[in-house]
């Protein structure tokens, strides 16, 4: 870990000002669960760390138009166990609880969850090339150990995935990210927050360097009764997703009024395809109708040496998640999306 100076921001304006002044060499710190790890690995080498934990951004409160506003500094644990999140946005609660460990969820904040970095082995190993860490140095993952890497939206520069579970549910719920910067406040629709690697894998989102996330707005949701987060991983708990699916259905009897499907573990950002979701509109909620949707979601997928299995696994996870969502939120027993009768 390199030596850095430490400042504690007393207001959002102070935090933004300090980040601006640090000229790219400053990092905000809140939960620290990802940043401190990256500091220890020398992946992050800031001159200044700006502590934002004393800012008044930890509340969860009613938002505009029947929605809920999640403070950027509310912890993942406080968010997942919040009665209104559990009641109105059960897939979000499940997704958060499917991620990390209880200790980490007690520390990690909502804003930080959005900004966590990939767990691609090569990004983490400073002895290796990585276009994300050192632009232009190459991507050893493409022909290397790529089991954990992506199969959708990859580029010849980077095949890393976004590691978050929470963000997959937020993408499905079409959350809105509220940010503050020197020019004031603005909002970013979730689909436009994270970016694909393209030729600039070092850029992971559309947040400006001197902007800070202040809250995440959840719009009113008609999906609470049929919301699922299914996660497939190498061990039963405390592992990153190989593939995960947030599936939300609005049903009229057994007919689908609308559907939302977001995929995790497969791309540089939470993966959605609204035009594919629309294929389900007006159809009955059956496996026969789910299968072509799953196939369409992975139509453009490209597997690499050690992760091609994610394509078939992903399709099956989508069908399973949609079947579980049809059955209903209440039928799901645990954080892996298993049902009581499974």
């Amino acid at each position, binding site marked *: *870990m*390199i*030596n*850095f*100076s*430490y*400042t*504690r*921001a*007393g207001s959002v304006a*102070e935090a933004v*000002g*300090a980040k601006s*002044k*640090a*000229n790219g*060499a400053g990092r905000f*710190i809140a939960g*620290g*669960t990802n940043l*401190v*790890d990256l*500091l*220890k690995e020398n992946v992050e080498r800031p*001159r*200044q*760390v700006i*502590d934002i*934990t004393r800012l008044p951004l930890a509340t969860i409160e009613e938002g505009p138009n029947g929605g809920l506003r999640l403070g950027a500094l509310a912890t993942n*644990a406080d968010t997942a*166990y919040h009665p209104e999140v559990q009641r109105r946005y059960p897939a979000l609660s499940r997704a958060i609880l499917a991620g*990390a*460990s*209880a*200790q*980490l969820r*007690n*520390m990690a904040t909502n804003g930080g969850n959005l900004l966590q970095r990939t767990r691609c082995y090569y990004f983490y190993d400073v002895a290796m090339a990585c276009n994300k860490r050192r632009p232009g140095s190459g991507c050893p993952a493409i022909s290397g150990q790529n089991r954990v890497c992506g199969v959708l939206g990859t580029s010849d520069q980077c095949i890393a995935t976004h590691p978050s579970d929470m963000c997959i549910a937020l993408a499905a719920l079409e959350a809105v990210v509220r940010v503050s910067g020197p020019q004031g406040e603005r909002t970013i629709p979730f689909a436009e927050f994270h970016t694909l690697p393209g030729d600039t894998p070092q850029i992971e989102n559309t947040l400006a360097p001197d902007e800070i996330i202040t809250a995440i707005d959840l719009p009113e949701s008609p999906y609470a009764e049929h919301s699922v987060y299914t996660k497939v991983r190498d061990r*039963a*708990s*405390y592992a990153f997703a190989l593939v995960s699916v947030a599936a939300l259905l609005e049903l009229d009897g057994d007919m689908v009024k609308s559907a939302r499907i977001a995929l995790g573990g497969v791309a540089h950002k939470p993966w959605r395809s609204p035009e594919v979701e629309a294929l389900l509109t007006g159809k009955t909620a059956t496996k026969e109708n789910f299968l072509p949707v799953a196939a369409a979601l992975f139509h453009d997928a490209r597997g690499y040496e050690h992760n091609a299995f994610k394509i078939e696994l992903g399709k099956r996870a989508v069908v399973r998640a949609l079947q579980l969502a049809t059955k209903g939120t209440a039928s799901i027993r*645990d*954080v892996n999306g298993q049902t009581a009768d499974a």
Partner: protein
Amino acid sequence: MNAFSESDTAGGSTMTALPGKSPVKLTINGESTTVEVAPWTTLLDLLREYLDLTGTKKGCDHGQCGSCTVLVDGKRVNSCLTLAIMKDGSEITTIEGLTGKDGALHPMQQAFVDCDAFQCGYCTPGQICSAVGMIKEGHAHSDDEIREGMSGNLCRCGAYPHILNAIKQAYAATEKRTAA
């Protein structure tokens, strides 16, 4: 802005003054302590290297094993991923602080002894602090919930079944005490 230490970033200079140490006031196991630490000192290193509270263990040092688990303001966290300077004003409870002033073991400690819930013992302080935190969180109602809630604490000896038994015993004792 409360600047604890200044680095020379003016004019894009590559010369950076070594940030100094700053005082951090903590209440550790009920006792108020002020320690001078560098910004990059973790809570784990502060406990072990500055205060000689070596009950809290350094396993992976990356938040993956849970052996560094302590309670900060009543909540279980990984002390290896916590910068000490950020916890100024907090209350910390470590494994040393669970024991009563008269030396009596905490019910969770006693349950680990009763149930033989360890072999080498290295992960045990973290397991016990984590279990105490979990019961406080109120999500320890079934074997599955306990296993899931304790998944952030690895035991490479594989004492998991006995750890589960110990937590259930301590949980039952806690419930009984609360009901009484």
